[in-house]
């Protein structure tokens, strides 16, 4: 037992001499962590088992919005804890939750206009154009610009510009006018997807074709096939070229709708 822990200590020493360590301050408390770690892994290295403030660990779910600051700097910096590598002397605090209002609506009933957005989120007019939201976005989205597009009624523009939003809430946490930018963003995206983008006619047709059981016969045949025959059919199927024209059609049209 003691041997084990001795050798562990030695290992620790060895690994620490090879690892470059940096001091970070987690909620004001100092820990030395390897310089290559992300903020998230630094918390864990320090001994935390995360419950809040950790989700996909891949930069897309928005669970780990984090603010930090360096000594002698007035600037508050932001990042996703799972994506941001530690730097010496960071003072770190996660913001795993921030209260935010969310308008309730029936997307079917809404018109894709600026007045829809301003009626659901009237506080949007309080925007003073300070740009803190844009500076607070870990996804480098021009948040203030999509908010002003939404006010102007440019729903498509707001939807497009806010598309990469991970809804981490850092913009909202820092907004002096108390806007909930990310909820406004998703409203514009849903308005765009539902009411502005043209509907896919071929999709509607495909649903109808299935409903009319137009493919049932073919699939029944496949279901009944013995495995060797199925393998043969599989191997013989035509493959659409990767970069061919959208209008490509296969030779065998038996199980397709050609009219």
């Amino acid at each position, binding site marked *: 037992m003691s041997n084990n822990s001795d050798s562990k200590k030695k290992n620790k020493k060895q690994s620490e001499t090879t690892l470059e360590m940096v001091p970070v301050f987690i909620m004001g408390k100092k820990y030395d962590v390897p310089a290559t770690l992300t903020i998230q892994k630094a918390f864990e290295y320090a001994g935390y088992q995360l419950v809040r403030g950790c989700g996909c660990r891949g930069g897309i779910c928005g669970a780990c919005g984090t603010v930090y600051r360096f000594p002698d700097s007035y600037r508050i910096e932001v990042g996703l804890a799972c994506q941001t590598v530690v730097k010496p002397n960071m003072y770190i605090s996660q913001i795993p939750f921030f209260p935010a209002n969310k308008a309730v609506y029936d997307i079917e009933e809404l018109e894709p206009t600026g007045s829809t957005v301003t009626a659901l989120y009237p506080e949007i007019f309080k925007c003073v154009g300070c740009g803190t939201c844009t500076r607070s976005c870990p996804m480098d989205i021009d948040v203030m610009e999509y908010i002003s597009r939404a006010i102007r009624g440019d729903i498509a523009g707001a939807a497009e510009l806010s598309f990469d939003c991970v809804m981490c809430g850092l913009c909202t946490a820092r907004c002096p006018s108390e806007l909930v930018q990310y909820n406004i963003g998703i409203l514009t995206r*849903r308005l765009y997807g539902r009411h502005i983008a043209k509907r896919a006619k071929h999709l509607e047709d495909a649903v109808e074709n299935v409903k009319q059981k137009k493919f049932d016969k073919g699939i029944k045949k496949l*279901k009944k096939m013995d495995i060797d025959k199925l393998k043969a059919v599989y191997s013989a199927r035509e493959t659409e070229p990767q970069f061919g024209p959208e209008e490509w059609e296969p030779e065998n049209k038996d199980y397709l709708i050609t009219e």
Partner: protein
Amino acid sequence: MAYTPELRKLIKRVEKTRPARVERKKRGEEFPAQSLKEREDILKYHPDFKDEGRSEIRVGPSKGYKISNEIVELLHAKSRVSPDLLDLSNPDYEIDILIIGGGGAGTSAALMARENGAKVIIATKLRHGDANTMMAEGGIQAATKNRKDSPYYHYLDAMGGGHFTNVPELVETLVNDAPLALKWLESLGTMFSKFDDGRLKTMHGGGTSRRRMHYAGDITGAEIMRTIRDEARNHKDDIRVLEFSPAVELIVNEKGHCAGAILYNLETEEYIIVKAKATIIATGGSGRLHMQNFMTTNHYGATADGLIMAYRAGVSLNFLHTVQYHPTGAVFPEQAEGLLITEKFRGAGANIVNIDGEQFVYEREPRDVEASTIIRECKGVGKGVPIPAGKFGVWLDSPMIDILKGKGTIRKEFPGKWILFKRYDIDITKDPMLIYPTLHYQNGGLEINSKCETSLPGLYAGGEVSGGIHGENRLMGNSLLDVTVFGRIAGKAAAGYAKTKFRDGKLTLDHVTKYHKELEKEGVDVGGRVSPMLLPDYSNPEVREKQLTTKYLGTIR
């Protein structure tokens, strides 16, 4: 964390072969795809074929089945709650439907259950939407262009990808319901990538014979998840979400019907009793168990909880002997390790090449074949690229995409990945990425039928937690489809069940007592383990060693 000088030198070799490879791609000349026989041979390099990675389950309905050690270990463990200590007579909540899991399947189920007149509670371990659905990048399959594609070919592709082991009824449901699922998402306002006339953009994925992968930039799953989550939040009177409250055990009443679950509030450490007329398990997968020590693309909560609970309640497992490794996970820089690099990169024209810049695999093989070929190139052939951490990888030659499809394509089609690598000082429009297979998907799971019913009355399952739809190997784009199609079915079916078939009775945990007895009878050494795991522990073991009072009683631990 830009590339090291050694790696920069190796990138030169990739650049040298690139022009010729681009020309071949332009001419439509592909590296030859493997025959079914060749596939069989290459699969010997797949981690599934390592016998020491698996062991037999010794209790329960699938006794004798050999699956990953890491899952077996959780099955060979006791419940977190002692059945005798819990008073079930005063439930904290009574509801029509309890949905365990707040990802794509759970949320789709909630919306459909509500549409069919049910009141719903979603109990979720982390936040609503923290799930693998959120992380799915590439797309969602559906045969929506019937002049060149139909559910017939979708069926054929899915069966071939699964090595013809898939459960035919489930595949039939998947492919037939696919267009409807997509239309539902479109009508909710999901921003799919479209042409100006409204036609959906589609591309190939591994193992597809037609371009039927629909997408929303390179964050398809996130776009779907945040849209349906927003919709659920618009119905907060009918759909109540309990966050940070994972289920730890199902409740089975004296009539033998599933009647809810015990939840655990991760913050107050309370156990909460939810009585429900029907229960849906939508807890997702198990990548965070790190089978065979592989890195994973999965989100923090993917720890097989639903499998464990339902198994104790008597539901059989299938297809868990196979685990999906995504061929292309990032291996460099270290901070990005395990991160999913979507198959769409290959769909858009990027080659996979070895240390000498040579192609060695067709880029659109089914995932297990693609992954095995990459593992062989590194471990068998010895042409992997050595990485500082002592590991190996191969190159995914992303710059080809801008050359083939025009400058700016990567930034437009892969905005998420571009910005991510930019943070590490790597410009993927100019330099290739280093990748290696990474633990990605639980092919198998709980046995269900095409109505998402399990063998336990009143218990439904949908999404990654269930098994059979994908057989032994899932194709890209069939999981977002799976969660939407089967989530919707589960919600509707459970609502119908709650209305007409539910039989009330005294709540019990007798099945847990029985399971414990069986463990004892079979002489399984549980070693003090409890399950489900709920969350992995990545905290520093040296700190853990010093946490001397975690098991003491006192006012603070």
